């Protein structure tokens, strides 16, 4: 057992636990209202929104998996750079409209918007279910991240005793989410980010000095990993995979319920726009985090017999924990581990809140209890947030970790299928509601089929175009089919004069709060 690391870890974890519960009193309001519990009263300003969205998107899994991919596969892992580069202009141009219309009509979820826009409970239901399905494995992945750092501190026992630290972390997470709602992750995100910046700055300054500079680190990387493999023999190879992963992920990110939740809790339209100019600060940090994968290679941790047991169990995911243990005094490694674990709590809390908002608003209120009061909604959402997390915990404890990873790969492929209803819906209602449902169905089946054809090992599908093989992200490949079918069926349904329902919104709603 690594006591210095463990003690620092427990102290920092205790700190955020207190912060999580104190958050209930922050900007005090009636937490028995879903608008307060689930969206923190939509009162977050620029700074809190920045921390919240940052905490939301740059998760424990990012700290573990991105460097792990770079550590194992090299340059392809850096697709996270063009991905986060492209996401902010995309959100800047489009998503203030979602904020405006949601603020105007009191929508809590993207499904609420779809419900109001298309007058279709069915379309709203499929959007909600897709959101919940895509979010659940994401929460499980956060718990996997905690598992890795707990193991790194020397918890090697198996069975219930081995699982106990994770269960304790989970109970704390569940309790403060239940009592404080979205306020808790927002406040903890501030602590988390301070820790992230401290650890990353230390890591990219101290370790390269130990290793003799950046040039040395890059020189230690095998040439074939340092760059993307160029196209050869009619196969575009990694080039198209890199580009489609980046583009598809950037389209998908803000369709995730937890990202929408973060956006809608902002107090003004311009808060979102301002944040899209400020959030790239995280992209720079992400570049450094990805770079840690190479630092781990250069430091030779994979050949250190002290780490071989962990590498055997966790594979490349152990690269960053190993690097922290290798390069820093034990207490500072504890700071790093706590940072990763807290980095798991923030998104896990927001994701469970977002998933329970979806269930409450678009399944419970829509189908189970149409006359539910806001207090009943909040009560249901709180309970469901527990169920969602319990499901994720059971998933991690019972099933091998690879299932969570595979489902997370599918999550991106699934959530992007809601783009036509949500994003196109922000501009035009031309697409017919039933056409959107069937387009969604086609996209879900095709995208899942593409990943299944790779035996769920990767979401990169080798598309054959004539003699050419163009490997690419299944999400991006299935989306045009979804949209194409939606357009085609819209033309048919229009010709048949199929009823299109009533639009709750008017065009000026989408510009609400514009200066």
């Amino acid at each position, binding site marked *: 057992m690594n006591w210095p690391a463990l003690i620092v870890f427990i102290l920092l974890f205790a700190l955020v636990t207190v912060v999580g519960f104190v958050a209930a009193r922050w900007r005090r309001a009636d937490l028995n209202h879903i608008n307060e519990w689930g969206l923190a009263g939509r009162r977050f300003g620029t700074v809190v929104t920045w921390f919240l969205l940052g905490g939301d998107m740059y998760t424990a899994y990012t700290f573990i998996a991105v460097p792990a991919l770079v550590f194992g596969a090299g*340059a392809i892992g*850096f697709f996270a*750079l*063009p991905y*986060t*580069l*492209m996401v*902010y*202009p995309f959100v*800047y*141009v489009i998503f203030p409209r979602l904020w405006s219309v949601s603020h105007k009509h009191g929508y809590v979820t993207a499904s609420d918007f779809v419900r109001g826009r298309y007058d279709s409970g069915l379309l709203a239901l499929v959007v909600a279910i897709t959101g919940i399905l895509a979010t659940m494995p994401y929460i499980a992945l956060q718990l996997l991240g905690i598992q890795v750092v707990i193991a790194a501190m020397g918890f090697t026992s198996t069975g219930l005793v081995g699982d106990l630290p994770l269960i304790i972390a989970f109970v704390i997470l569940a309790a403060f989410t239940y009592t404080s709602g979205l306020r808790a992750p927002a406040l903890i995100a501030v602590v988390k980010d301070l820790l992230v910046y401290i650890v990353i700055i230390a890591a990219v300054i101290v370790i390269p000095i130990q290793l003799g*500079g*950046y*040039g*040395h680190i*890059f*020189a230690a990387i095998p040439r074939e990993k*340092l*760059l*993307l493999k*160029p196209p050869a023999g009619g196969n575009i190879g990694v*080039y198209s995979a*890199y*580009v489609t992963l*980046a*583009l598809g992920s950037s389209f998908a990110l803000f369709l995730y319920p937890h990202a929408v939740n973060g956006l809608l809790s902002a107090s003004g339209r*311009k808060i979102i*726009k*301002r944040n*899209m*100019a*400020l959030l*790239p*600060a995280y*992209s*720079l940090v992400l*570049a450094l985090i990805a*770079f840690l994968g190479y630092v781990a290679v250069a430091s030779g941790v994979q050949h250190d017999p002290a780490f071989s047991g962990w590498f055997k169990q966790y594979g490349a995911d152990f690269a960053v924990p190993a690097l922290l243990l290798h390069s820093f005094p034990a207490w500072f490694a504890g700071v790093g581990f706590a940072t990763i674990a807290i980095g798991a709590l923030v998104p896990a809390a927001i994701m469970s809140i977002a998933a329970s908002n979806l269930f409450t608003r678009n399944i419970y209120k829509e189908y189970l209890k149409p006359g539910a009061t806001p207090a009943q909604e909040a009560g249901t959402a709180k309970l469901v947030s527990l169920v969602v997390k319990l499901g994720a915990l059971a998933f991690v404890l019972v099933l091998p970790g690879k299932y969570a990873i595979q489902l997370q790969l599918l999550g991106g492929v699934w959530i992007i299928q809601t783009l036509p209803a949500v994003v196109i819906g922000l501009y035009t209602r031309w697409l017919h509601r039933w056409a959107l449902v069937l387009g969604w169905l086609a996209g879900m089946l095709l995208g899942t089929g593409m990943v299944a054809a790779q035996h769920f090992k990767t979401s990169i599908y080798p598309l054959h175009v004539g003699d050419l093989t163009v490997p690419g992200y299944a999400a991006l490949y299935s989306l045009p089919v979804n949209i194409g079918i939606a357009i085609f069926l819209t033309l048919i349904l229009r010709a048949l004069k199929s009823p299109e329902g009533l639009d709750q919104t008017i065009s000026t709603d989408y510009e609400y709060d514009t*200066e």
Partner: protein
Amino acid sequence: MSRLKRACWYVVLFAIPYGGVLWVALYNRVEPALFGIPFFYWFQFVWIIVTAIITAAAYLSKV
């Protein structure tokens, strides 16, 4: 210039970094390296900063 016209200009501006990072063949090389960092890495890093500046400019000109 009207707000809509300015917005169109910014969409064009945003297309530049998109094109920059999507054209992989352009930057998938080691040289010219900067402080020992291969071109592939610092090129994308610089585009992140450029994109943030464009976004900030769009925000400041109320687009």
